[in-house]
């Protein structure tokens, strides 16, 4: 699991980030927390994308993860960071597993849109239910870590970083297993995969469930680092679009890509918002189009070109 270049890089990066985070100003730590929390969901979308599936509705699972944290906090007063994360991942993963029975039969645009439709049902329910916080959402109390309440954001940052990188390692491993390698193969020829003796539906169901667990975990971490959930920022279709945007921006080349892409997105948005409070959407949209048109491999492909393919796989 640790013996390839990517894995070694991840371990090294983890070390550097955790030490660096202790000295970095708060806002930089924040950017990394938001970026890495989101990256978890991107990692899952990358697993799907490699198989040619794009979900335009993963805010459903992102939101479920975030709201699981909020509701546990309000109803039961659960504040432990690990319990919260677990809850987010389990709730989203269970929902994903169940929805997966429907989704695994669909491909292409129908897959993308059915996901949107399902996420919109959740959005509609949350927005219209006062006990679920309606449009206002909930504030979330500070997370505790195994019983102790940290003074600063740094411990949460370290945890998010470690969880992010562990997930990257796990996904990196998964992508090398037999079912994990069934990506391009499924995209190229499902019939052959079936005739070889593997159920495409099962493979996609597994990938889908993995992606939903990761999206739920991402939502939970995001809720914890922001201290707030609301449907507009967590479940709406624009959030799904944003997740896909970052996936495309990152590129499918490597499990590290989502983390880099997510950070770039976070910084881009912060500055777009700062420089042009009335036209930041325009900047984001134009960037998005540029990436789709001119950098189809995302940031990772740019890095590969820069590094002369040194880091490739």
């Amino acid at each position, binding site marked *: 699991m640790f013996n390839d270049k990517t894995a070694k890089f991840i371990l090294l990066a983890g070390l550097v980030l955790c030490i660096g985070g202790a000295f970095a*100003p708060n806002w930089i730590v*924040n950017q990394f927390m938001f970026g890495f929390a989101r990256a978890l969901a991107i990692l899952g979308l990358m697993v799907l994308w490699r198989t040619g599936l794009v979900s335009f509705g993963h805010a459903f699972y992102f939101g479920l993860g975030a709201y699981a944290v909020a509701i546990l906090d309000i109803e039961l007063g659960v504040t432990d960071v690990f319990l919260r994360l677990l809850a987010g991942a389990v709730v989203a993963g269970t929902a994903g597993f169940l929805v997966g029975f429907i989704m695994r039969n669909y491909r292409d645009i129908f897959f993308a849109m059915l996901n949107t439709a399902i996420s919109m049902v959740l959005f509609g329910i949350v927005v219209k239910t006062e006990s679920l916080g309606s449009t*206002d*959402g909930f*504030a979330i109390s500070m997370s505790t870590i195994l019983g102790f309440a940290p003074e600063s954001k740094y411990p949460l940052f370290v945890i998010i970083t470690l969880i992010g990188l562990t997930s990257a390692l796990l996904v990196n491993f998964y992508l090398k297993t037999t079912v994990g390698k069934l990506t391009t193969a499924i995209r190229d020829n499902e019939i052959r995969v079936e005739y070889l003796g593997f159920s495409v539906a099962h493979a996609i169901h597994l990938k889908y469930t993995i992606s939903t667990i990761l999206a739920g975990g991402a939502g939970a971490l995001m809720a914890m680092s922001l201290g707030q959930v*609301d449907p*507009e920022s967590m479940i709406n279709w624009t959030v799904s679009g944003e997740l896909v945007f970052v996936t495309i921006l990152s590129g499918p080349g490597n499990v590290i890509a989502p983390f880099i892409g997510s950070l770039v997105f976070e910084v881009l948005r*912060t500055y777009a*918002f700062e420089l042009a*409070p009335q036209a930041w959407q325009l900047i984001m949209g134009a960037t998005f189009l540029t990436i789709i048109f001119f950098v189809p491999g995302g940031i990772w492909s740019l890095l590969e070109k820069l590094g002369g393919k040194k880091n490739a796989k």
Partner: protein
Amino acid sequence: MNNKFIRGAVGFAAVSAITLSGGMAFAKDAISIAVPSFLTGGAAGPFGIPAMNGAKMVADAINAGKLPAPYNTKGFGGASATIIPLDEGGGATKQVAEYRNLVEKRNVDAVVGYISSGNCQALAPVAEELKQFTIFATCGTPRIFEEAARKYVFRTMGHATADNVAAAMYVKEKYPNLKGYTGINQNYAWGQDSWRDFDLTLKQIMPGSSPSDKTQFPKIFAGQYGSEISAMSLDKAELIHTSFWGGDLEAFIFQGNARGLFKKKIGVFTVGGTAAYRLGKKLPNGLVLGARGPYGILVRDRDTALNNWFVSTYKNLYGTYPSGPAYQYGQAILATKIAYDKAGSDATNEQLADALRGATFESFSTTIEMKLGNGHQAITENGYGITEYDAENGENVVKDVKFYPASCVLPPEGQNSVDWIKGGMKGAKC
């Protein structure tokens, strides 16, 4: 070693220490104030832009020392302020992230603004966590200071309970024989709270009237109210309460007007003030109109030096009369000046908070008393009037304006608004 050297070294050390501790010993000559408001989306036109205009106008005047007395000193504790405009759209969670950036990355000195209750509700704990001096200008929900004690967060206008209690009182005075009432409010905290306060108050003060069993709660930004208008037309209730604002408010007025709704029913618009200047003769006569306090059209003719300055300067700069949000943002900026003048331009967040806590000051249109929430939540009078189109001048005016003192429409310190109304509004001095 000679003395000079020692003195120099000590001096250097002291300067370094002071510099490191944030340069606190030096009075600043410039501060930055972040002003979030809706710059995009449906709330920008009726709310966000007038609010931003009000804030800028007042800040510029303060920087130039041009406000009427007693605020004619230059600057904020002498420092000149830069306004950093910011979009409030995109949901509370995004605002939380942006707020952290404002404080931790852009190092603003004060944050003054916010229109949406959802945003204020989300940001209050963050402001406390970051220990950042913050004034909420417009947002309405009473929960912010009723749920928790705040140290760094203030609100310089009355909360939504006042709007609806005052509306109920005005209705009682004007329509004592009212039998039934209904409402159409947006389906989120703002709409739900507004209806609840109005309904509870009427139940207390007009036991002879009763609410319809079919009150409408359409989605915010729905824009199409055909079915609701039919349902309310068929309803027995003679009065319709709404806390609609922005584009929804205007769409509802257009559609209701075209169907004669407001000829058959009494309309009570708690946030109608913003529409008065914008709709011209499309605004029906005879609406009960509020402006979330003594602002906008309700106080246009209040003849004080501060108000005259505000109205005339605004009209010169932007070509229209100032609406409620302009007043509310303007007075929040004014409160910032008051805090800085008292605490000094180099004041810490704690000192600024101490300076504003419990203060009483003359704002442009009314007196602001920071009396609730341990001195963090303002109380003001609240009023309503009835719309009438003045054909001669081609503009809307309000007649029969009546103001209720703060102590009449807001609960005393330490009491939750809902409990206070339910308990018969004890201690209200009207």
